[in-house]
C-alpha cells in the first residue's frame, strides 16, 4: 500500500488535515519522528500525519520550572537546552531508538510523552504523566483545543494532559506541550553490590528505598546482563550486579553514599562518569539492543530476534515473577524500579505472552515492547484490561475521536 505522508507546519494545518481525514473517513497514522514506530500494535493507514514539522521550543523559563515546545521538537534540541541551565526532565525519558535498531537521539517531545516513557528515576520523580502540565492538540473531530495549563500547580478542570501521556496518539494529535522541568543533580554516585541472587538483590534495593537517603535509581542486573555492560566496573564484576543511585548536591551525595555503603554492605562505588553511563544503559534497555557482537548467536538478550517485554509489578513480587518467567521461557532479564520493573528478552515462542501474563496475575501489567510486526498483530501488545476498564477506555477514546481517525488500533483493537 502506498502511504502518503502529510507534514503540517502549523497547528492549524494539522487541524485541517484531521478535518479532511474525517470527511474522507480515512484514518491517520500520527507520528513524530517515527523512532518508536515499532512500539504498539501495527496499524495500516493510507496516510501518515508527520508532526516533525511542528518543531521548536516556544518558551523556556528555568525559574518557572516550565518548558513549552511544539510537539515535534527533537529531544536532541530540548535536552541540551535544559542542561545548559542545569535542568532536566526529571522522569528521565527513555531513548528507545537503539532498541529498535535505529540511531539514538531521534525522538521528539510529543513522542516521549505520547509513549509515556520514563527511566530509572520513575521511582522517585514520577513518570512522563507527572511532568505533563499542558497540551494543545487536535482531537478526532478536527477541533484544535487546549487542556491543563502552563504553570506547575493547576487543578482547573479535568487533567486532560495526563490522559495524553501514554495514549500513543490515539486521542489527540498533540501540537504543543508544556512540561515541568526541574534542577539536574549536581553530582551522582552509584553503590554496587556484587553477587546477589534476585531475591537478596531486591531485598537490598528495598532497604535502600526504605532509607531516608533519597535513592533515585535501584536496579539489579543478573550476571549475564551485567557482563554485557560497557561500564568496566559492572562487566568486570563477573557476577550479578545490584545498583543503587544517589544524586544531588555534592556534600549530600558524599554523606548519603557513606551511610548507604555501610547499611547495604556495598562492594564498590561508581564515580560520576561510570554512574551516568550505567544508568543510561539501564534506562534505554541497552543490554537488549541488537549488537553486532551477538548477531547470529541465537542466544542472549542482544539477539535482535528476541522479543522484549516490559513488566511492571509490585516490587516485592518482582523476583517471583522473574523466576516464573525464567522457568517457563528462554528469557534473559533485569530489574529496575527497585524490583518493580522487569525488562525481559525472550526467545520467540508462541506462548510467551500467556506465560508472562500468567506469572504476573493481578500483580501488575506487561507490555510487548519489541517484536516483529506479525507477532504484534496477533499478540496483545498492551496488557489486556478488565472488561469494565476496557469498556470505559473505548468510551474515552470515542469522546476524543468518535470516528476512529487517530492511530486506530495502535493500543487495542478498535480503540
Amino acid at each position, binding site marked *: 500500500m502506498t502511504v*502518503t*505522508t*502529510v*507534514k*503540517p507546519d502549523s497547528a492549524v*494545518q494539522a487541524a485541517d*488535515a484531521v*478535518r*479532511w481525514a474525517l*470527511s*474522507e473517513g480515512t484514518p491517520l497514522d500520527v507520528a513524530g519522528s517515527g523512532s518508536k514506530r515499532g512500539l504498539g500494535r501495527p496499524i495500516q493507514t493510507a496516510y501518515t500525519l508527520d508532526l516533525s514539522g511542528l518543531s521548536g521550543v516556544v518558551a523556556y*523559563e*528555568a*525559574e*518557572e*520550572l516550565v518548558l513549552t515546545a511544539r510537539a515535534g521538537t527533537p529531544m536532541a534540541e530540548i535536552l541540551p537546552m535544559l542542561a545548559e541551565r542545569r535542568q532536566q526532565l526529571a522522569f528521565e525519558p527513555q531513548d528507545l531508538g537503539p532498541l529498535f535498531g535505529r540511531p539514538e537521539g531521534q525522538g521528539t517531545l510529543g513522542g516521549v510523552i505520547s509513549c*509515556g516513557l520514563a527511566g530509572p528515576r520513575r521511582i522517585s520523580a514520577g513518570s512522563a*504523566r*507527572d511532568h505533563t502540565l499542558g497540551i494543545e492538540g487536535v*482531537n478526532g473531530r478536527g*477541533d*484544535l483545543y*487546549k487542556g491543563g495549563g*502552563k*504553570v*506547575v*500547580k*493547576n*487543578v*482547573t*478542570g*479535568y*487533567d486532560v494532559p*495526563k*490522559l495524553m*501521556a*501514554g495514549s500513543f496518539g490515539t486521542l489527540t494529535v498533540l501540537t504543543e506541550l508544556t512540561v515541568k522541568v526541574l*534542577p539536574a543533580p549536581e553530582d551522582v554516585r552509584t553503590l554496587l553490590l556484587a553477587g546477589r541472587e534476585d531475591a537478596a538483590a531486591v531485598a537490598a534495593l528495598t532497604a535502600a528505598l526504605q532509607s*531516608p537517603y533519597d535513592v533515585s535509581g535501584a536496579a539489579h542486573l543478573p550476571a549475564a546482563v551485567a557482563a554485557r555492560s560497557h561500564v568496566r566496573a559492572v562487566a568486570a564484576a563477573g557476577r550479578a550486579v545490584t545498583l543503587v543511585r544517589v544524586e544531588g*548536591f555534592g*556534600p*549530600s551525595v558524599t554523606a548519603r553514599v557513606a551511610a548507604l555503603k555501610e547499611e547495604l554492605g556495598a562492594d564498590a562505588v561508581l564515580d560520576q562518569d561510570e554512574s551516568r553511563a550505567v544508568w543510561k544503559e539501564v534506562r534505554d534497555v541497552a543490554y537488549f539492543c541488537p549488537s553486532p557482537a551477538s548477531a547470529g548467536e541465537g542466544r542472549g538478550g542482544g539477539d535482535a530476534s528476541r522479543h522484549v517485554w516490559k513488566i511492571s509489578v*509490585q*516490587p*516485592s513480587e518482582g523476583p517471583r515473577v522473574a523466576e516464573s518467567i525464567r522457568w517457563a521461557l528462554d528469557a534473559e532479564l533485569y530489574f529496575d*524500579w527497585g524490583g518493580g520493573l522487569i525488562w525481559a528478552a525472550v526467545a520467540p515462542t508462541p506462548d510467551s505472552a500467556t506465560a508472562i501474563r500468567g506469572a504476573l496475575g493481578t500483580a501488575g501489567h506487561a*507490555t510487548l515492547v519489541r517484536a516483529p510486526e506479525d507477532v504484534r498483530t496477533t499478540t496483545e501488545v498492551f496488557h489486556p*484490561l478488565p472488561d469494565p*476498564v*476496557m469498556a*470505559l*477506555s473505548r468510551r*474515552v*477514546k*470515542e*469522546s*476524543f475521536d*468518535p*470516528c476512529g481517525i487517530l492511530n486506530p488500533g495502535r493500543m*487495542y483493537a478498535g480503540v
Partner: protein
Amino acid sequence: MRMPAPDDGVIARRREIIAALRAIVPGEGVIADESELRAYECDGLTAYRQLPMVVVLPSTTEQVSQVLRTCKAMGVKVVPRGAGTSLSGGALPLADGVLLGMGKFNRILDIDVANRCVVTQPGVTNLGISTAVAHEGFYYAPDPSSQIACTIGGNIAENSGGVHCLKYGLTTNNVLGLEMVLMDGTILRLGGKHLDAGGYDLMGVVTGSEGLLGVVTEVTVRILKKPATARAVLIGFPTSEQGGDCVAAIIAAGIIPGGMEMMDRPAIHAAEDFVHAGYPLDVEALLIVELDGPAAEVDHLIDEVAEIARSKGCCYSRVSTSEEERLSFWAGRKAAFPAVGRISPDYYCMDGTIPRKALPLVLHRMQEMSDRYALRVANVFHAGDGNLHPLILYDANKPGELERAEAFGNDILRLCVEVGGVLTGEHGVGVEKRDLMTDQFDEVDLDQQQRIKCAFDPDGLLNPGKVFPKLHRCAELGRVHIHKGELRFPDIPRF
C-alpha cells in the same frame, strides 16, 4: 452563581427514593430528617448552603454501587462528599439530589512497607494515613492545611496539594491505585501497588475531577520515608519584588525546598498579632524556606539559601537552630487564615496560580482592586509554585459586602489567567469558580472536557452544577459534523 433548577418531579418522588435507598443501606445509613440534614447543607465554602433531598451513608463498595445504579435508574442526581472541607463548594448539595457521604469508609486496609504503599478506604483522613505509618518512619507527603479533617477520598476528588507539593507533588503524583464506582454502578479497579496503570491514564483524569466522574471506594497511595532533618530560614524583604527575586534565584540555583512560603505585610501582621511567632513587622514580604533531607544536605543548602537572600537584599534573616524554632516559624504561617479571621468578621480565600515572575504586577494590581472595592486583602503565597492565596476581608453582615468580596475575588482570578496562570492551584473549581471557567478555557476546550464526562456519566447525574458553567447533553456533544467530500485535501506539504 446559580445551581441547576431542581426537578420537581424528582422531589415529588422523595418518599419513594428514600425507601429505595433504605432497601440498600438499612438503619441509620439513610438520613431524611430535616434537622439531621442540616449538618450537610454546606462544605468549607460556607457562603453557599442547600439542604440535600436525602443523605445516604453506605459502608461497602457494593452498597455504593447499588445506590448509584438505583439513582441512575430513577434519574436522581448524586453529590459525593468526603469530610466536607472543600473550599470551592465541591460538595454543595442539591435540593433534588442524594448526598452520598463516604464517612463510613474509615479503615486502613493494608500497610505495605516493603512496597512503600498504603491501601485505605477513602474516608480515612489525610493525616490518619501518616499517623498509621509513623511508627515505621514513613509518611504520606501531600499535606493540605485541612489534613486533620479532610479525607483521602476528597483529596483524590480535588487533587489536593499543600505546602510541600513543590518538592513532593500533588495528590495525583502520590496515588498508585483506585477502586471506584461509576454512576451506572460499575466497579472499576485502576492501578495497584505497581507503577503505571496499563492503558489510558484513567486514574490521572479521575484525580482532580471533583466528584464528577465516579465515586472512589478504595485508594492505594505511596508513602515516603520521613526526611532525617528539616530546618527553615525566615527571610524578610523591604519589597515583595525582592522576595520574588529571591525565590527565583533559589530555584535557579537548583534548590527545590521542601516548603517555600511567602506572606505580605497584612498577613505578617495578622499572624504575628495572633500567635507571636517572632516575625519581623518592618518588612513588606516574609519568606519561610524549609529544607528537608539528610543532615549534610540541609546544612549545606541552608547556607546557600541564606547567601542568596543576602545577595537579593534581605533586611532580615534567621535560621532555625532547633526543631522548636523551626515550628515557631511555621506557627504563624499555619495560623494565617484564623489570624485573618480575627481581624475581620469574614474572609474569602482565593486560590489562583501565576507564573512567579508576574508576582509584583499581580500584587500591585490587587492593591488597586483593594482600593476600588474598599476591601482589605492579605496574601499568603506558596511561592515555589506560584500558588496565591489572597484573603479578602469583608463583613457578611454589611449589605453588599459579600457580593463585593466575590466580585473582587473574581477579578483577582481573571488577573491570574491574564498573566498566564490558572483559576485554581489546589482548591478546585467547584461552584465557586465555575462561571469563570470561560475566562481560562474556550468553548471547544470545555466541550472536550464535558465529552470526557459523558464517557463516565452519560446522563450527567454525578455532581452536576460543579466545574462546568454550561451543561450540554451528551447526545448533543457527541454529534459529529462530517462534510463528506466538501473539504479539499488541505494545502499541506505531502510526499
